[in-house]
């Protein structure tokens, strides 16, 4: 147990550190993913199996989406042209080190109490019962609201489609655009 901790904890911290050292955006995203995977594995090590698996699954999906955004929208996604997208590094470093030292001092100064009470028998089962039982209506409504939001966003974003540009048979040339010279002339 303690040996696995000493593998996972430095891995989580070091890959978290590397997020802001890598120039390549894809590498930075994967470093953050490694950090999350290590802490998810630590949660599993603590006996919080459900929570650990949720963190791992959620963060794998999130980092895939994040990598697409990073590569699509960053100015220098591959890190091939050296450029700095940072500001005020010395003060940020000072604030970060100070907050770490304060937190560490607090961690060792506070007399942490032992566990009060016993853990519930099966927290995962209880969570499932709460979500699928009393909160079922909330979750179903939430699902439809999210779906309606996505459809509405796409409809609003594409109010001029190809049929508006090229006519009903898609044969109009040039396209009827407010400003001429676009794609698909």
């Amino acid at each position: 147990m303690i040996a696995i901790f000493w593998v996972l904890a430095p891995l989580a911290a070091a890959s978290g550190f590397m997020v802001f050292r890598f120039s390549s955006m894809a590498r930075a995203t994967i470093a953050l993913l490694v950090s999350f995977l290590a802490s998810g594995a630590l949660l599993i090590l603590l006996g919080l199996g459900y929570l650990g698996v949720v963190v791992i699954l959620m963060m794998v999906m999130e980092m895939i989406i994040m990598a697409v955004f990073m590569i699509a929208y960053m100015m220098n996604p591959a890190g091939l042209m050296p450029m700095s997208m940072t500001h005020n590094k010395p003060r940020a470093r000072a604030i970060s080190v100070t907050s770490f030292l304060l937190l560490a001092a607090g961690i060792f100064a506070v007399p942490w109490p032992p566990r009060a009470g016993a853990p519930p028998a099966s927290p995962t089962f209880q969570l499932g019962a709460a979500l699928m039982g009393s909160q079922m209506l909330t979750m179903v409504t939430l699902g439809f609201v999210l779906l309606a939001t996505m459809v509405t966003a796409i409809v609003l974003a594409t109010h001029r489609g190809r049929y508006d540009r090229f006519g009903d048979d898609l044969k109009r040339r040039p396209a009827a655009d407010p400003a001429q010279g676009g794609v698909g002339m």
Partner: protein
Amino acid sequence: MSLQLFLLLAAGLFAIGLYGALSQQSIVMIMMGLELMLNGVIVAAGRLPTGR
């Protein structure tokens, strides 16, 4: 495993994320810093309820 070790890891992740969130200029990288801070909170929240 001791509570202090876990909380120390959580504090380290939080501080690294804080550095990123303060020093990065693009919104996506600031998000990465915030995520790292969240990672620290997750580690601490996973260990704290079991006490010393």
